[in-house]
């Protein structure tokens, strides 16, 4: 909304942005990153979602209209440049506790102690990339800061990463900068958290956990790389809670999910990296943000026919408001992730099921009634304009969403079978799965190949 306003202002069209009461602080922080710190906002009392029609009318006519007029006719305050440290400046010198106190007080840390980022430590990280330290990979919203190799190294040090992880960290920031991912939405109110999926020989070379407890902290590479992501989102993208990060509840960072490629190769299923367009054996990262999920415990059965109905039921149950990313805000951008333990994948593969066949089953059977689908969009999530019939007539969504007017017809939760993602990891011999609820277009799934420096010789475990 503010990005739209900024485009207008740059085009010489004065704007006012309608901002609910709880979002005034976020608007102020975002405006700074857009280079327009005094861009005017029109106050909307409370939250429109919780107001009766009479209350809304009273608030808009009694309060907001006058703010709109002021914003469009009165000159806003003059903005002034603020000064900040330089890219390579030392901002504090002292002992471990004092550095951490300073970093915490200046909102540089996540609340846990960080490794002080010294020149010596950063230099160790830079030795594990061929890239120039000053190279700018891109500019990250909302703060519009430069994503540099240097800043990646600094935050990698802070997160407790080992220098050898640097190629992974660079790939992650490259993925973060992919416009399809939409990093600028990382402070949205659902407050989801990014999951990093790792593929390739680098899993074993750097000692990532890819078996039991794969999503549990306690494994240095999985944990510290996950923490790096959140620190970079905080320090360089600029998502700070109570400012640009408006997560209603939020999550802590997720540890890295490394796939079990031994099992995948054994059963003939392609790893996630191949699904993302890379070659089997490439070192890759895949990122997407998920607002939640749930374990699917004790999947019983020795055949796909016995197992799939339960898994399918779990997929549907993890898809409620998220269908606004199927039809509505996202338009075909919902990509639910189903994480299978190795024994489940092996059982499916033993029966001759490919990954594609599993996805096709989900597409054919993970459905909900059109009535429920539309009710969520129209009545429950405050988007009164959505209507499946109208969207199909306009050619904006696939015809399968309106093959009749029967409100009890079953419609899919994604546009095509390939929208489902399947990963394999976790306890090799436990029959559990996990379904992740995706944040759609606001954190779309993207992947990057990890480029290793010349003379790559990881020294871990040696």
């Amino acid at each position: 909304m503010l990005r739209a306003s900024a485009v207008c202002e740059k085009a010489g069209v004065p704007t006012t942005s309608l901002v609910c009461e709880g979002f005034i602080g976020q608007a102020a922080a975002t405006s700074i990153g857009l280079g327009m710190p005094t861009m005017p906002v029109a106050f909307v009392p409370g939250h429109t979602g919780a107001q009766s029609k009479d209350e809304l009318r009273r608030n808009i006519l009694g309060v907001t209209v006058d703010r709109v007029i002021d914003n469009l006719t009165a000159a806003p305050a003059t903005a002034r440049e603020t000064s900040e440290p330089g890219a390579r400046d030392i901002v504090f010198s002292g002992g471990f506790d004092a550095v951490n106190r300073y970093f915490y007080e200046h909102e540089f840390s996540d609340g846990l102690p960080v490794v002080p980022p010294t020149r010596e430590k950063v230099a160790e990280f830079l030795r594990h990339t061929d890239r120039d330290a000053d190279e700018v990979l891109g500019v990250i919203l909302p703060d519009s800061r430069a994503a540099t190799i240097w800043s990646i190294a600094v935050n990698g040090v802070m997160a407790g990463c080992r220098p050898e992880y640097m190629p992974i960290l660079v790939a992650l920031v490259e993925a973060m900068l992919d416009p399809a991912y939409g990093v600028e939405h990382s402070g949205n109110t659902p407050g989801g958290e990014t999951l990093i999926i790792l593929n390739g020989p680098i899993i074993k070379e750097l000692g990532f956990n890819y078996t039991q407890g794969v999503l549990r902290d306690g494994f240095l590479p999985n944990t510290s790389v996950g923490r790096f992501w959140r620190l970079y989102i905080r320090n360089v993208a600029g998502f700070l809670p109570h400012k640009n990060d408006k997560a209603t509840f939020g999550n802590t960072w997720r540890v890295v999910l490394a796939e079990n490629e031994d099992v995948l190769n054994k059963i003939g299923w392609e790893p996630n990296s191949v699904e993302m367009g890379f070659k089997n054996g490439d070192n890759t990262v895949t990122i997407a943000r998920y607002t939640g999920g749930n374990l699917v415990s004790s999947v019983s059965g020795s055949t796909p026919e016995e197992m799939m109905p339960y898994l399918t039921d779990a997929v549907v149950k993890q898809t409620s408001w998220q269908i606004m990313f199927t039809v509505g805000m996202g338009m075909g951008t919902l990509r639910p992730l189903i994480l299978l333990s190795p024994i489940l994948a092996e059982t499916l593969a033993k029966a001759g099921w490919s990954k594609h066949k599993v996805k096709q089953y989900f597409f054919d059977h993970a459905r909900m009634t059109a009535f429920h689908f539309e009710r969520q969009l129209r009545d429950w999530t405050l988007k009164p304009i959505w209507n499946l019939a109208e969207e199909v007539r306009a050619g904006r969504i696939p015809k399968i969403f309106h093959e009749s007017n029967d409100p009890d017809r079953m419609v899919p939760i994604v546009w095509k079978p390939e929208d489902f993602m399947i990963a394999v990891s976790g306890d090799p011999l436990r029959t559990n799965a996990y379904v992740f609820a995706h944040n759609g277009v606001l954190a779309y799934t993207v992947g990057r190949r990890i480029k290793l420096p010349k003379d790559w010789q990881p020294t871990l475990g040696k």
Partner: protein
Amino acid sequence: MSSTDNDGHYAALWPRSPRQTRLNKLAARLATLEGKTVAQLWDYLFRGDEVFALLEEGLKAKYPGIRFVSWRDIGNTHGSDERAVLAALPKKLKELGVDAAISGMGC
């Protein structure tokens, strides 16, 4: 403190990175909204359709000659279409003769 409690000594670097935006000037404001054309930019969220209808009512009561370009004629400024819609916006505003814009909903 550091020299006496085995706490070490660290010269810690700035973990942020320089901003790449300079201050941009805001557009000149209007002397009045009377006779002006105001575009409604909506992210299709949080009852913006109702809010814009109420704003139209309130603004027309004070400026009878004000005109509006509906959000229906602009497209969703958020979500899948955001980049395309925003890229096309300056040209569209010019073609539609827009003098000012109201953008919502930040909720």
